[in-house]
């Protein structure tokens, strides 16, 4: 059930490791999470150049199994679930009937009729309830597994080599997953990430998470906080739920039409199809500030629109961001002006991603 009362902040199994390493710890989506260790810029560049590790154990997991698991997920998820091979991964959104986005999710197919879906921490309870309420009539079990996994994202051009050195067999290719032992600990290894770099995400028994963390540190990975996770994902224009889309936005205006397959008849498909056909008044666009200054979430864009994510890009060394702008003014090359706390900052809309990475 959705939690209604304020509860105490939760700690991941790696909290003591973060504290001992001198991380700056902040509340995030109900959890005490490391925002940075030595500095966002250093951690960001470690991921772009070598390998960084993020504790993302706050993220939730929902397991769906049973004979009708594929047809149930096809009903609630926007992408074509039938196209996920066994041991495959797929990105999709969870939509309301009116196409409002409830969450964006990765779903892993563990067996023909067994799936694991990773949720955003702040949305987990709502996603779970939404899925369970719509499971009536399907021969399926929708199970909360959020307490059963710690999650580590190992990302960077050297990430695979580093993890492979601790593994008992080959790592899954990009957009695939498999059971593996890493540092002697059995886990689900997934060829996915949120940085634009190659790498893997590890879903592991919380009781064994410190063993894996210590092995990764011992092998030379840089611990990275949520601060660098945000700058990395924004350079490659990955969406952040709650910033770049929420239930008031549909996948078409959010630029997520590519993961919506209306022919599957998923919940919200009709509304998505209508938005796709008619176009939307606004579109999410990526921009680079042309001179000095850093736009932030909530800054108005002149002529209509608003910044939904804004930061300083350590790789481009200037202000970057994403925001909704009128669709007729969303083309790359369009000049815009952003009101940054009273100072007008010129910016230009650019093609996504803003920072092209070499991998994956």
């Amino acid at each position, binding site marked *: 059930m959705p939690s209604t009362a304020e509860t105490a902040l939760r700690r991941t199994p790696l909290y003591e490791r973060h504290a001992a390493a001198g991380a700056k710890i902040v509340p995030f989506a109900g959890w005490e999470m490391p925002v940075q260790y030595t500095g*966002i810029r250093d951690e960001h560049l470690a991921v772009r150049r070598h390998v960084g590790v993020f504790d993302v154990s706050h993220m939730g997991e929902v397991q769906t199994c049973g004979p009708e698991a594929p047809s149930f997920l096809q009903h609630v998820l926007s992408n074509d679930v039938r196209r996920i091979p066994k041991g495959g991964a797929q990105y999709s959104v969870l939509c309301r009937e009116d196409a409002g986005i409830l969450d964006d999710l990765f779903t892993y197919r563990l067996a023909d009729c067994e799936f694991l879906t990773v949720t955003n921490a702040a949305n987990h309870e709502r996603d779970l309830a939404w899925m369970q309420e719509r499971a009536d009539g399907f021969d399926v079990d929708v199970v909360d597994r959020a307490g059963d996994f710690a999650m580590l994202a190992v990302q960077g051009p050297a990430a695979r080599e580093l993890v492979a050195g601790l593994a008992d067999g080959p790592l899954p290719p990009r957009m695939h997953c498999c059971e593996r032992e890493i540092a002697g600990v059995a886990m689900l290894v997934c060829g996915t990430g949120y940085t634009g770099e190659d790498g893997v995400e590890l879903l592991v028994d919380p009781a064994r998470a410190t063993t894996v963390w210590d092995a990764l540190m011992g092998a030379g990975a840089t611990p990275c906080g949520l*601060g660098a996770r945000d*700058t990395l994902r924004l350079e490659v224009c990955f969406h952040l739920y709650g910033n770049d889309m929420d239930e008031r936005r549909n996948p078409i205006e959010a630029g997520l039409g590519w993961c919506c397959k209306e022919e599957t008849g998923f919940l919200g498909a009709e509304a998505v199809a209508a938005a796709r056909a008619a176009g939307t008044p606004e579109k999410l666009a990526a921009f680079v500030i042309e001179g000095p*200054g*850093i736009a*932030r979430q909530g800054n108005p864009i002149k002529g209509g629109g608003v910044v939904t994510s804004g930061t*300083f890009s*350590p790789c481009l060394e200037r202000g970057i961001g994403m925001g909704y702008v009128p669709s007729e003014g969303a083309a790359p090359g369009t000049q815009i002006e952003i009101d940054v*706390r009273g100072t007008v900052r010129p910016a230009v809309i650019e093609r996504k991603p803003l920072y092209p990475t070499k991998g994956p």
Partner: protein
Amino acid sequence: MTDASYPDDLLYHPEHDWARVEDGVATFGITWYAQEALGEVVFFEPPTVGTAVTKDEPYTEVESVKAVSDVIAPLSGEIVEVNSALADKPETINDEPYSEGWLVKVKLSDPDETSSLLDATAYQATLA
């Protein structure tokens, strides 16, 4: 980053600013605690020379990767000089918060205001 330090020859404002007063002109900056809390400063656009500043009111902003923060004036007066070198090297605010990382110099309009500021010991007590 440097280790925590709070020089004895400065006056401190509880909003984590310092002032060095000489002949009616004060140099302003942010404290070690402030730069540590902020993280790496990546952007500082100095205010305009000639602008009036008012004690306890924001007079400029410093930005880290993650956030923008107002900087509070520890004393009142008129800006007579700004540290324009910070535009190219804003990280100096982290590296040398009390020397090369100064922000502005202000001709004081009411030098008696200094009596309300804290010494290094009293300021550090507010951080405990």
